[in-house]
């Protein structure tokens, strides 16, 4: 593998890892703070991608679609938390697994009724539809770089939100000790709603910015969900920092696995997980 090729694979793995981080961050926050296993998290990614396709076809602008789509995702997440998830924080994990598995069925069917079962593609915006040449015949699409940039910006925003703001302080307090936080007069229900909506929005944004690169298709949520689980397990439940490290690691292993050992590429990531589990059964950054 020469340097240009290596660079391309490295950038691809970075982009994939950052995308996974967007999904895993929401998942791990929801786990860590509310203690909910959410199998339907992949569905939010799928809904984001379909929303992006639908809104682009209506508005003719990806940027506008993402802004509007994010608002829809936040409202949707808020409602879902209020109607359903709120009542499951104290139930068995088993009940949570089943509830969210049932939701996967419902979301898939709603998508099928609203938008059909066809595979769609979203046009890369004109302004970003060019490539940076690396060698005579190799180049890297700018849109993928922008994607990574957006993910990094959002990751930075998330970090600042959680560690530097008052809201973030309340979120951390709620994760640490729910009763104590509540008795200090903090509206923990509001915090839960905010965190859940944030998680849904992050997953949906990931789906929206990924839609021009990957096609938009039914069932795109479930494959990405399982990857997210692997990321959360490797990183340690509840740790956003762990999710970032693990996501980048998974991105690297998956991308280079496909290039170097294509026979076992599908398994490589799981082997990484097994290795981490042997070494640290509770993830790299257990809190």
């Amino acid at each position, binding site marked *: 593998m020469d340097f240009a090729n290596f660079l391309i694979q490295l950038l691809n793995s970075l982009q994939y890892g950052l995308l996974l981080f967007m999904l895993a961050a929401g998942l791990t926050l929801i786990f860590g703070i509310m203690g909910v296993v959410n199998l339907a998290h992949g569905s939010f990614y799928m809904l984001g991608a379909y929303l992006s396709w639908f809104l682009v076809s209506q508005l003719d602008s990806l940027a506008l679609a993402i802004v509007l789509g994010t608002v829809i995702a936040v409202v949707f997440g808020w409602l879902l938390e209020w109607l359903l998830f709120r009542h499951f924080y104290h139930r068995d994990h088993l009940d949570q697994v089943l*509830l969210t598995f049932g939701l996967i069925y419902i979301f898939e069917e709603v998508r099928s009724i609203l938008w059909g079962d066809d595979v769609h593609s979203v046009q890369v915006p004109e302004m970003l539809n060019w490539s940076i040449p690396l060698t005579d015949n190799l180049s890297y699409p700018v849109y993928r770089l922008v994607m990574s940039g957006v993910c990094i910006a959002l990751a930075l925003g998330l970090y600042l939100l959680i560690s530097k703001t008052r809201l973030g302080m309340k979120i951390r307090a709620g994760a640490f000790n729910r009763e104590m936080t509540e008795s200090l007069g903090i509206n923990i229900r509001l915090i839960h709603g905010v965190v859940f909506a944030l998680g849904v929005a992050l997953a949906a944004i990931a789906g929206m910015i990924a839609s021009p690169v990957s096609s938009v298709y039914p069932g795109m949520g479930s494959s990405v969900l*399982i990857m997210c689980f692997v990321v959360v397990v490797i990183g340690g439940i509840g740790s956003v920092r762990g999710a970032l490290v693990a996501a980048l690691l998974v991105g690297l292993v998956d991308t280079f696995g496909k290039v170097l050992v294509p026979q076992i590429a599908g398994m490589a990531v799981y082997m990484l*997980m097994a290795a981490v589990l042997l070494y640290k059964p509770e993830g790299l950054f257990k809190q």
Partner: protein
Amino acid sequence: MSSPKAQLEKLPRSMQVILLLGAIALAAFPLVPLTGADFYLQMLSQMMILAIFAMSLDLLQGVTGLVSLGHAAYFGLAGYALAFLTPADTPISLWWSLPVSALGAGLAALIIGFFVVRTHGIYFIMVTMAFAQMVFFLFFDNKALGGSDGLYVNFRPDASLFGWTGIDLENKTTFYYFTLLLLVLVYAFLRRLLFSPFGRVLAGIRVNEHRMRAVGYGTFGYKLAAFTLAGALAGVAGFLWAAQTGYVNPELMGFHMSAHAIMMVILGGMGNFAGAIVGAFAFEYVMHFFKDLTKHWQLLMGTFIVLIVVFAPRGLLGLVAQFSRKRGAP
């Protein structure tokens, strides 16, 4: 974090009668002349196979308190084992292909269990799911292992013993009875196990693992043994499934299959194996019913699952028990 609650370990007399009547009804069913009997025989065989699968999961989920979201991997592996063992031109002997397939699934469970059993709660759920997915991709990605299309099982296993050919599994009715026999055997075995010292330790782990450790039980070994045994029994079900349908594909090990098994155990009521059987039949019936009703069956199925979780988390047997208790009270 609360552990899943088992219930009705000792079945009330009324429920034992219901189960016995159900078994008699299943045994008598092939004798009833019915139009389209073949179809129903096959459907019932399939339900019985899934009941065995659900019972094997109940050993983990209801008895030991380990929620595995990857149990289908062992079900599928045994099915693939049969597909690989069966030569292209002749059937294979049942008497060694069934044990080998089940042991193969058990061995896989032992290896994977070694990694997953050391995790707890949410981790256990996610890690079992991830490993099942690893097995799924192993078969999905490799053309040599059948790839995404899967493999054919050319013949049902041959059950002749020392030249005696009284059992012909190619016959639908015979296969039906063979499946029923295995269902009863697995049930009897697991019920016996539940009240054995081993079963008591597993139940103790569900209730309070720390205390079991403090009392001096090596819970890791017990949990690993339960995981392995459950994998092998799931393998028995997977073997039967492959023999019946004559076809295996990666979907057998997929995420949906695993989740359905959990749903069956919950739907019936967990921790007593009888619930798993009832749940498997009820779940499959509801699924067929919705699929016949509309092409948007997923919406109905999803709503059904959500409603069950919200309103009947203790399952059908739990409802029956609640009802009879109310009626019995003055």
